[in-house]
């Protein structure tokens, strides 16, 4: 029997994998993909909760999350492109003018 806990643990695994990815990767696009992974983990948790609560709100929330993710992707990739134009790299360890 698959319970909600299974889904939530799977969601937690994906979320933490995404978090680790953000912390250890240096390619801005891959970091962004890791963030997408985190959002997907959250979506899974929403859908699972909705299912076990006999509720629709979770699924609707996922719908909105995806819209937001799409908007973020458009803007985020545009920002990355703009950075690449000026700097010829998207390694975020090189993008470090401002500090202290």
């Amino acid at each position, binding site marked *: 029997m698959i319970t909600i806990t299974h889904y939530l643990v799977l969601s937690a695994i994906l979320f933490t994998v995404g978090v680790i990815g953000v912390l250890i990767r240096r390619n801005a696009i891959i970091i962004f993909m890791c963030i997408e992974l985190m959002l997907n983990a959250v979506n899974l948790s929403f859908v699972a909760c909705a299912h076990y609560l006999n509720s629709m709100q979770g699924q609707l929330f996922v719908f909105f999350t995806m819209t937001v993710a799409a908007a973020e992707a458009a803007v985020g990739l545009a920002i990355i492109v703009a950075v690449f134009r000026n700097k010829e790299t998207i390694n975020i360890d090189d993008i470090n003018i401002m*500090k202290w």
Partner: protein
Amino acid sequence: MLNLVALILLFPLIGTVINGLAGKRLRKETVGYLACGAIGLSFLVSFMVFIGLLQLPPDERLFEKHLFRWIESGSFISAAALQVDPLSVVMILVITGVGFLIHLYSIGYMHHDKGYHRYFCYLNLFVFSMLLLVLSNNFLLMFIGWEAVGLCSYLLIGFWFEKKSASDAAKKAFVVNRVGDFGFALGIMLIFLTFHSIDFTEVFSAVSHGNFEKGSFTVTMITLLLFIGATGKSAQIPLYTWLPDAMEGPTPVSALIHAATMVTAGVYMIARCNALYLLSPFTMTVVASIGVITALFAASVGLVQNDIKRVLAYSTISQLGYMFLACGVGAFTAGVFHLMTHAFFKALLFLASGSVIHALSGEQDIRKMGGLKPHIPVTYKTFLIGTVAIAGIPPFAGFFSKDEILLEALVRGNFIYWSLGAFAALLTAFYMFRLLFMTFHGECRVDHHAMEHLHESPKNMTLPLVALAGLSFVGGFFGIPGANALEHFLAPVLGGHGHTEVRGAVSAGHHGAWLPYLMMVISTAIALVGIFLAYQMYIKKPGLSKKLAERFRLIHKLLLNKYYVDEIYDAIFINPTKKISTQVLWKVIDVRMIDGSVNGIAWLVGRIGSVLRHLQTGYIRNYAFYIVVGCILIIVLAVFGR
């Protein structure tokens, strides 16, 4: 007539605004007389308010002028309201009266300065803030005045900021005062917590209804915190170090802010809160002890200083010590009385010393003066009156007030207070006459260059001197024993614990009625001894002082270096932090000095800042790491932290 009280505040404010915004474009004369006029009008209104108050029966002499609702939220209400009662009237008369004379004097004194309009703008702003401080009817508004006078003092000490010593002195004054203000702010918070009000009337009536037992911890805390504020503003041990440095400011500023008015704010505040202080015998002891120790300490440092203004600065600290002694033994009237007379004669002394400095084209070292008496006769005469007044020779003003304090110290306090105070009085007479003799008598040690320009100051400078000399002469009669007008006037505020009943107790007690008169004789004798010693050392046998200095080299050196207090502060607070940071932090990371930091704590905080800023590495991944760490901590705290 009492309704006019708001005008007292309005005039200086108008002066500030006009001079601040348009002063640059106005003619110098216009700027000066505008500023003077503002304070003069303020004085006239103050006088009318005084008359108005006199017409009321003594018990009803409390008038509150509600200006507007200021801060109001829930149970907390604080109106912007002014309070006119005998105590504040005495203060506003002194502030506007002495302030007016000093403004007048400044017109001549500052005439050649390029920051003329800036000076008068600040000075008017100061008067406004000081009036706000003494006229407010609640602690919060008073605190605002308290902060504002500190700010003006800062601006005026650093007026000649091109001099590094001046801007350093300004910073020092500001930082030291912040320490005191911090105590004051905490005290106000505690008052609000305890009394649920910050209104003077409400707080003091709650106290007088006896809701608090004598010596209760809360009241002791409140009074001690307020007293910390007072030690900062009024330059008492241990927060006095800024005042001698503050002499970097223009001399009229020293006269107005650092002698006559602002530094007495602490005394005013304690007198205002007398009901609270009387509830805490412990605080009273602290106040009296700090007062008398400061009086003696500063007087002893004053013995050997060679800068004419520094001698006066230490003398101010010492005289403030007397006022705190008076408050500490419960003789608030005597404290306020001395505050008033001190304002007259110390302002006079400063202005006269300014006149000397003016005459000598900026020379301040008394070893390079001497024999000036025939060249600047008016200055000499007025300075003499001031010196006699502070030394305590009857019938000049200082005699009555100081005698009063010493008497109260003996009767209400104990013999130790009296003897220390009396000894300080001896020193006062000595160093003041030393100053007088070295400046005006003996042989002339002025260099030729300055000699050529030697001249008596213009009319608008000598006029205030003469006026203040007159006040120093007659000021004592307001509080003359027997028919003590000041005391009767102040009685409604400072309560039945004025000294009438003491005198009653004294005459009924075992000391007998002769004690006050004996004390007068003793005081006079002490002053005369001091003068005689100074005369012997500096006029009769000019070599004697040098010989003495050699014989007691250690003490002389100790005094000359002001007991090494600044050095001790450096050694305890500043050097260790410096050492730690240079040896530990400097090598670890690149550090940036904060320009000429004056204060160990500020320095340390700045250093911590320059270390911590390196947490801001600029790497996104580091920032994300902080977020994750914070996230784990918050979840742990939220879930398991119960």
